[in-house]
């Protein structure tokens, strides 16, 4: 599969210990990419997240730096954005723009080039890594503050961030025509819930509340400004147990 062709085999879990200290987690294929190869690690990580999320997130380290998980999130998330943008262009060409139904005004005319046409497509593709990066930080901040409010943030901000980065694996489902975006979005939520439960050692109900409540109450629409503010609160309180 990869340049070196070696398959990732997580080490066997440590035997149960009477100590209360948390056991070290074996790691993910992506964080072992130096040994098993970049492409192998990318493919294997994506497959494991998509098909065996519980075991993946149980083995995911909750510390050790955000660079690796962020790189994974950017790569897979960008792929999803690019595929979705291409599909949108194709359907727009076939069916016409839905943006036109929003009416006409100076403001709309100003932003129209950013939403439609080849220029919009190029912008989306070029800026996709930046949007994915910003999105990961903002979404993590929002979810983490809800975890704090629900008493579920047993590990730090980094644990939540890592879960969100690896949950980006759902973005590959954008390759499904027509309903790929919907499936991808829904599965991202499922992965995030499973991941948060595993990373923070909390119940899936608490994890689900932390992921779903922002969708209902914050709407996740207001340009990220409010979300940043909530993110600030999350980070300031990042040591709350």
């Amino acid at each position, binding site marked *: 599969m990869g340049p070196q062709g070696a398959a990732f085999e997580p080490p066997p879990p440590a035997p149960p210990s009477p100590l209360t200290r948390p056991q070290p987690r074996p790691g993910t294929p992506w964080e072992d990419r130096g040994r098993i190869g970049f492409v192998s690690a990318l493919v294997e990580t994506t497959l494991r997240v998509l098909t065996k999320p519980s075991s993946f997130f149980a083995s995911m380290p909750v510390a050790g730096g*955000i660079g690796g998980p962020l790189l994974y999130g950017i790569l897979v998330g960008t792929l999803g954005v690019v595929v979705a943008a291409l599909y949108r262009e194709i359907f727009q060409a076939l069916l016409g723009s839905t943006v036109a139904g*929003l*009416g006409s*005004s100076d*403001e*709309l005319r*100003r*932003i129209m080039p*950013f939403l439609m046409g080849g220029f919009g497509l190029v912008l989306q593709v070029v800026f996709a890594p930046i949007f994915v990066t*910003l999105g990961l*930080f*903002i979404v993590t*901040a929002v979810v983490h*503050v809800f975890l*704090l*409010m629900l*008493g579920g943030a047993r590990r730090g*901000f*980094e644990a939540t961030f890592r879960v969100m980065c690896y949950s980006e694996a759902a973005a590959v489902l954008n390759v499904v025509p027509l309903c790929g975006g919907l499936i991808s979005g829904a599965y991202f939520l499922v992965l995030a819930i499973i991941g948060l439960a595993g990373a923070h050692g909390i119940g899936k109900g608490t994890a689900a509340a932390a992921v779903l409540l922002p969708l*209902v*109450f*914050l*709407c996740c*629409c*207001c*340009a*990220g*400004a*409010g*979300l*940043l*503010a*909530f*993110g*600030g*609160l999350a*980070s*300031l*309180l*990042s*040591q*709350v*147990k």
Partner: protein
Amino acid sequence: MSADAAARLETGPAGFALKAVPGGLPLGAILAGIAALAAAAVALLHLDALPFTVCVFKFATGWPCATCGSTRALARLFHADLAGAWGMNPLAATGMMALLPWGAADLALLARGRALRLELGPAAARAARVAVVAAVAANWAYLVAAGR
């Protein structure tokens, strides 16, 4: 020693401590950078003056969501209109303004490989949690009353 007592020693008698943690994530700087980018985007593209609502919650219920007014607050902050920003969404405006000193502190510490972190003892953490929930609820009530 109990966990509570150990936490009190770590955080001091007030129940909280600001620490420059070696190797910590400079989250304040990251979020402040994102806020600056967002402010520039909102101001340059006039995203605070869209002729339609982008809030699904408001569209569906007629009530503002807890972050409605944040984009307009961000635009006002970009133009240094602090009162206007606070009127649009007090909690969002306060949070975004808090990012400035936090981000600056993180940037100052970055050269030494450290990041600012607030550590709370158990009692302070409980109080902070209650305060955050109360602030979000009060902010939302204000948004509904003000018709944001």
